[in-house]
């Protein structure tokens, strides 16, 4: 067999900037086979175990469900269905604590198992997938609820549909498992290498990709050997390569792994498909094989239970929905008084959980029970001494120190100038910071704030658009009303005009009111002309009482004081204006100068009356 295996020519590897070497702690849990976990009494199945919209439950409380039965269907494109991971009865559909950094609860379907493990009828295996259209395979993968199992839980069917304009040449399979402590992918590659290869075969067909690179860190020799063996035995060995990469956290990050294997960088804010690459975790690949070749939905996964606070660290094959406490109990429980914190995920990117009732989801790869020695309290953060170790460690070549500076100052614009959103939250910067500043926390905060602001901006724009539309609508309605009114008037006018031929005198006879108005207007015009001849401007205040006149003069004085100029150019020639103007307080608020201020006006009025 060795003879048939072609000599590997040493593939050129690339490096990403930064990264850190950390004790991998994998020996704790890497020995021994994966232990199948017995079925728990209750299964808690969150409706949202993936990125995207929560699935829609299609069972009711009291329903009997079978293993592998669909219990929640996808809602929308970026969504994944949920299946019962054992047979039993639905006892509740309500909010339960779920594995989420917030520690909040979310809707779950709770099943009391019957221990019979009765399987539902599964979809037909698609053994002949080579002849099937990629869309059919994608639909199968979608219906089986497959999501990314490396942690992010993005629906796999979506990731496998990059679109026609993005031809895929390379499938990258991520077996790097760069986080310390975690060994579930290691064990999966050792025990299910055949399934991984079958999954790769399906994905290569589905994507139309030329080649597949399996990246594995060099601290997993057994997994490497197992995968190489499976590759050699497979019929696609010419297109698949097992690439051993140096152990350096975070080389298992999607963008970092692609860089190491291909030398290419996924564009900022972009996805790998833009450079013709799709990346899948080894566990996802095996789940794809299950879905396509066996019709088996994603209802169980490998989970590492480790940390020095656990009595027997190791790996378990766990039904999705099993409470965390059951896993810990299965591995001998916690050591008395040793636990400092329980973490879901790895020590670098995982999140602390306070409730052991939370269930294992499709994306949970590790339960980590850390002792005080393993995760000591970093103590209060000191001032940043600008040493730049964070920048040296950052795998995205960011300047974490500047990001921290601006995040702390809540300067969201500058934070984005320094490319906050290229941060993958790997934790390298915080790990090396001598001042023990919780840098990642600051970045998460700044990201959340930026999103919130973006949301607010959108809301404001929406409100503005609505307001503009409203104003336009009102104007339009007003115009229409006016037009109608005009039309009506025209019609009214046209009627009498039609009755008698157009002649001024006769029109006046017809409408005495109009004639009276017209006469009054003519009188006013004549008076105005006469006054103009005498050099006097017309005044509409002449007929008022002296008290009223003084009041008017006072109002004009205030206007003048507010710098509004004189109305109709007559205040200058009005002596009482000056005299009465003095005691009047000028409007204190400039912006309100135009509006009449009721207070003083009313006061004057009452004084006058007294």
């Amino acid at each position, binding site marked *: 067999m060795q003879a048939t295996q072609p000599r590997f020519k040493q593939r050129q590897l690339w490096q990403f900037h930064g990264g850190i070497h950390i004790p991998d702690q994998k020996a704790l849990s890497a020995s021994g086979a994966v232990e199948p976990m017995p079925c728990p009494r209750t299964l808690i199945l969150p409706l949202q175990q993936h990125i995207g919209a929560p699935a829609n439950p299609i069972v009711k409380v009291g329903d009997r469900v079978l293993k592998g039965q669909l219990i929640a269907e996808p809602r929308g494109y970026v969504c994944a269905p949920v299946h019962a991971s054992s047979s039993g009865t639905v006892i509740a559909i309500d909010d339960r604590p779920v594995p989420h950094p917030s520690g909040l609860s979310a809707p779950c379907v709770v099943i009391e198992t019957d221990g019979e493990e009765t399987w539902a009828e599964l979809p037909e295996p698609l053994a002949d997938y080579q002849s099937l259209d990629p869309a059919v395979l994608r639909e199968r993968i979608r219906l089986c609820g497959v999501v990314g199992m490396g942690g992010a839980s993005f629906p796999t069917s979506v990731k496998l549909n990059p679109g026609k304009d993005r031809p895929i040449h390379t499938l990258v399979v991520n077996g790097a498992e760069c986080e310390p402590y975690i060994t579930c992918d290691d064990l999966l590659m050792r025990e299910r290498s055949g399934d991984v290869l079958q999954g790769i075969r399906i994905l290569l067909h589905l994507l139309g990709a030329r080649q597949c690179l399996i990246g594995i860190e060099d601290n997993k020799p057994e997994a490497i050997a197992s995968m190489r063996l499976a590759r050699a035995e497979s019929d696609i060995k010419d297109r698949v390569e097992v690439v051993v990469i140096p152990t350096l956290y975070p080389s298992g990050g999607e963008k970092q792994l692609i860089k190491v294997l291909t030398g290419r960088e996924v564009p900022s804010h972009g996805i790998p498909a833009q450079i013709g690459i799709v990346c899948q975790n080894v566990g996802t690949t095996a789940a794809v094989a299950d879905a396509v070749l066996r019709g088996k939905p994603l209802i169980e996964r490998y989970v590492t239970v480790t940390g020095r606070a656990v009595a027997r660290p190791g790996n378990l094959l766990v039904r999705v929905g099993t409470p965390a406490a059951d896993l810990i109990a299965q591995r001998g429980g916690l050591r008395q008084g040793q636990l400092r914190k329980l*973490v879901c995920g790895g020590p670098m990117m995982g999140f*602390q959980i306070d409730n052991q009732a939370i269930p294992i989801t499709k994306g949970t790869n590790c339960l980590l029970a850390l002792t005080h020695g393993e995760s000591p309290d970093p103590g209060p953060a000191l001032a940043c001494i600008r040493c730049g170790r964070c920048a040296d460690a950052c795998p995205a070549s960011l300047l974490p120190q500047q990001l921290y500076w601006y995040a702390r100052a809540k300067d969201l614009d500058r934070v984005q100038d*320094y490319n906050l959103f290229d941060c993958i939250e790997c934790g390298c910067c915080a790990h090396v910071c001598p001042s023990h500043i919780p840098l990642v926390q600051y970045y998460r905060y700044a990201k959340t704030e930026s999103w919130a602001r973006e949301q607010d901006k959108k809301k404001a724009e929406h409100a503005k658009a609505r307001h503009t539309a409203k104003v336009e609508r009102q104007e339009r309605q007003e115009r229409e009303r006016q037009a109608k009114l005009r039309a009506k008037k025209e019609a009214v006018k046209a009627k009498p005009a039609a009755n008698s031929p157009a002649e001024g005198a006769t029109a006046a006879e017809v409408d005495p009111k109009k004639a009276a108005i017209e006469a009054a207007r003519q009188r006013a015009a004549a008076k105005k002309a006469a006054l103009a001849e005498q050099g006097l401007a017309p005044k509409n205040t002449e007929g008022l009482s002296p008290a009223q006149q003084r009041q008017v003069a006072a109002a004009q004085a205030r206007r003048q004081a507010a710098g509004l100029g004189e109305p109709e150019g007559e205040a200058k020639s009005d002596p009482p204006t000056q005299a009465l103007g003095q005691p009047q307080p000028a409007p204190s608020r400039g912006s309100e100068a135009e509006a009449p201020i009721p207070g003083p006006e009313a006061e004057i009025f009452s004084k006058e009356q007294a």
Partner: protein
Amino acid sequence: MTGVVVSSPHSARVNRVDRVMLQVVLALIPGILAMTWFFGWGLLINITLAVTFAVGAEALVMRLRGRSPVAAISDLSAVVTAVLFAIAIPPILPWWLTLIGILFAIVVVKQLYGGLGYNPFNPAMAAYVLLLISYPVAMTTWLPPHMLTDHPLSLLDSLRAIFLSQAPGGSWDAITAATPLGEMRTQLGLNRMIEEIRHSPLWGDFGGRGWEWVGNWFLLGGLYLLWKKIITWHIPVAFITGLLLLAGISWLLDPQTHPFPAFHLFSGGAILGAFFIATDPVTACTTKRGQLVFGAAIGALVFIIRTWGGYPDAVAFAVLLMNIAAPTIDYYTQPRVFGHQRDS
């Protein structure tokens, strides 16, 4: 189990500010011992004084600011500042000048700007420059290395000189000497040729006698810092390259009026400056490309000021000048972020 939930990472942190500072102090020990060997007890007395003053000043200001003095003192940054300052000043400087310098460094340059991490200027160098400008005579009165003097100062002599300003034997002239950089400057100012100047017994193989070997010991400490990854190579290498490049060019142009490059490197504060002062993270550039610019510019400025400026040594001035420029350099030397197009 309930308590403050802390964001990832949950790993044990690998660095600590006080350990970084302690390593710097440890790395200074060879140089301090060498200087003590050549110039007597004065340096050790000054270090003791400066550290005491600095810790006291730090504690006082922290108390005034309503913060924990213990936390500030235990980060050891004040100690590093004090030791660097003590190394830079003459070994028989009167104690009250040390006090003024340290108060200025800790209270004004460091704490008034916000304390550790916020000071734009290197506190030790700012204090050194303050004293150099205000008390030029005292600040340039150095002792000769022990092999060049008949009266090496005893511990008691040094104490009396520092605390009582009493010269042993009653005369300062008998026991003090200019630094090699000062001497070279004076002689060149008299239009003498390098060859003539170097005939004097003051000179060793490539620098002032005694002096030329102090730099080596600081270099040893600097290499220790590099090995311990407390500093990176960028600033020291750029500094030394900048200095040697300019010194080398001018020496090649005219070897009779320009001392050869190694003289620049191993006289005065060049090595100390390259490894211990310019690398002060708070006041230096933080981007790698920026650090190269920053270091090279300091090296070049050191040569320029030594050659054409008003003072014999220039490390402090050069460092302070570049401290001002550091934020701007950082701004223009940001690294290309992963996944972004290379700038044209």
